[in-house]
């Protein structure tokens, strides 16, 4: 049953360019949860980490925008089809770019985001060691 949804979903994706979405009825799983609670939880967790591209600083799990609804539907359908959340994320990143994911991946453009906290931890340790060592 859920497998049957996938080709249909891909069809709607192809047929509905972003601009035309406002006048269309909401996608099937925009406001509908998956029946399987475990899958829904997975989808929900993933949706909270995807950016609504039409909003300012909202995830697709927090938005009324039609595009966010479509993306929620995509995510639910793919999770229902048995895809892993990270695979869905990778698919969305391929489609919309890194910008869509709130979870920065380590890459050539993002390494400072991971290097600087490490550096901070070291600096914090050094400051503490210098301040606190040997004081009495």
């Amino acid at each position, binding site marked *: 049953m859920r497998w049957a949804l996938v080709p249909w979903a891909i069809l709607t994706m192809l047929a509905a360019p972003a601009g035309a979405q406002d006048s269309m009825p909401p996608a099937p799983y925009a406001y509908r949860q998956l029946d399987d609670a475990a899958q829904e939880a997975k989808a929900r967790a993933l949706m909270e980490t995807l950016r609504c591209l039409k909003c300012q*600083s909202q995830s697709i799990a927090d938005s009324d925008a039609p595009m966010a609804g479509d993306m929620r539907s995509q995510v639910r359908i793919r999770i229902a089809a048995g895809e892993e959340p990270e695979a869905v994320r990778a698919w969305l990143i391929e489609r919309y770019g890194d910008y869509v994911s709130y979870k920065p991946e380590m890459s050539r453009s*993002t390494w400072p985001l991971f290097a600087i*906290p490490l550096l901070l*931890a070291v600096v914090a340790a050094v400051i503490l060691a210098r301040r606190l060592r040997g004081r009495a």
Partner: protein
Amino acid sequence: MIAEIGLAALWLAAALSVLQMLCGALSVRARGAGGAVLTNLTRPAAVLQGALAAVAFAMLLWVFAITDLSVKLVAANSHAAKPMIFKLAGAWGNHEGSMLLWVTVLSGAGALIAAVERRLPERTMQATLAAQGFVALGFYAFLIFSSNPFERLPTPVAEGMGLNPLLQDIGLAFHPPTLYLGYVGLSVAFSFAVGALVTRQVTPEFARAMRPWVLGAWVFLTLGITAGSYWAYYELGWGGWWFWDPVENASLMPWLAATALLHSASVLASRDALRAWTIMLGVVAFSMSMVGTFLVRSGILTSVHAFAVDPERGSFILALLAIYIGGALALFAVRAGTVAEGERFAVTSREGALVFNNVMLSAILAIVLLGTLYPLLTEAFDVRVSVGPPYFNPVGAIFFVPMLLVMAVGPLLRWRRDSLARVGREMALVGAIVLAALILASILGEVPLLPLIGLALAGGLAVASLLPVRGRSLQRVPMATWGMVAAHFGVAVALFGMASESAFSKERLAAVAMGQSVAVGPWSIRLERVEPVAGPNWTALRATLLASYRGGEPIELAPAARDFWSPPQQTTESALATRWNGQLYTVIGEQADDGRWQLRLWWKPFVPLIWLGGGIIALGGVLALIGRVRTDLRRRSVLRRSATRRSDRAALTAEPAE
């Protein structure tokens, strides 16, 4: 005419800020009697400047109240049909108005210290007021030259454009003023730090004088952030309460710095240690306020490229940032060497714990700053990345978790030198609670790692925060200690709410026919009816829901979807049912083709504790503030009395000799 009075008041205030700056600076230089005239001018200039800024702001409120559509700002942001409260709130619901509020608070804070702060050496105060005047001057210039709120239109328009409906909410009407009182109130800490650096007077007396001002600002900042979070929670209609949005981060960063500053000022006041560190935090706290203002007010958040196209305002603020932050840091670099580090202490001492948490708070601040600025930086190079909760939560936790652990033990330690063995029983108790909570939460259900740690630490911290008053005569515990206990307990309460919300929330999205029931968590909700209603500047569809908790007496909830017409926009008005153990959150959505209504329902166990905790933290700040001010007044009256007694005695002994 009203708008012109406002503009004139702004110009006069700007001129007075120059006077304040020059008199302050010159009287710091001129140590002799010649400077006395100038010295006597500084304080009145600051007070008058504050009053004039207040006049300008009152004039802005006035033109909004009467919807004077010949004023550009009113035409662009107001509408005659708005309720009065939102007409007034509209005055600061836009760029120019909110900057005027910013400056008003800035000069009001300056006026207040000029009027009442007399504990510090006069030279330090003069330098402080000069710094405050210098900061004010830059922002007056910004207002007058690039963000004039009183600009007239060549021809008045027939009707205004209206205010963003999301902002037409009583919670948001008072959110910015509260936040700004905190945000900009920190300018006092900045000026104090600069003043103390200039005169090299970094002493415990200085910390004692600065502390109440920082506490006051911090209380407002705490309340502002808490209120803003609650507003986002109920107004945006999806039950989220913190998004790590740059605008939110802009308010969190000064709070983190101010929290660190409060604690290090305490060390300086009680133990004469951490001198340079306290000064540094004083500079950093207000710098974060200015960085936040830049982020929010320059338009850079909407798009770096939009900012690049119309950079006037952004570059203006950026230049101000460079002057003030750069100047203060340069002064710090020159002078910090001459400020001795102060008293020494052992690792296991209260100072040790406070230093540890100061470093952790600063690290969290650095992470938030990095995560906020980094996407803007890459966007400038046409690489767009998003940094959100999956980054901030775990990376922040690296520093937050150790901080909470030390926070549990720190208040139990003695100043200067202590041993962990002395507080061994307390530590064992807290450890046992944390462990028990960990086990309990993992039995209850599959809780993700971070919320699990949060729940356990919240339990431990809640108990640990009360331990400092254990075994003491409760009436003799100083008010400031109660403040600390309350604030730390508030952190535990808020943390529990946050962890519980992300671990145990239940969501239900459903298309519901009239009279049909759906369940979410322990609630059963029936859709009774949906009807149109009309407000002053909106129409709405309002649903009536009957919600019953575990089959109990049903309560009525009325979520609505509002359609504003000026500007045309929809908002969701959620309806909440609050119980001691959580909140039911209901939203009405669209009607489907088959006539059923879309309902969004959440059961969020213990979620109100997030904001209750925020309130308790702020209450702790208020208690500490009252305690500090009372102790200070008492000390001063004792000093005064002993001084009179001494002079009486001197007079008595002197008399026989005559």
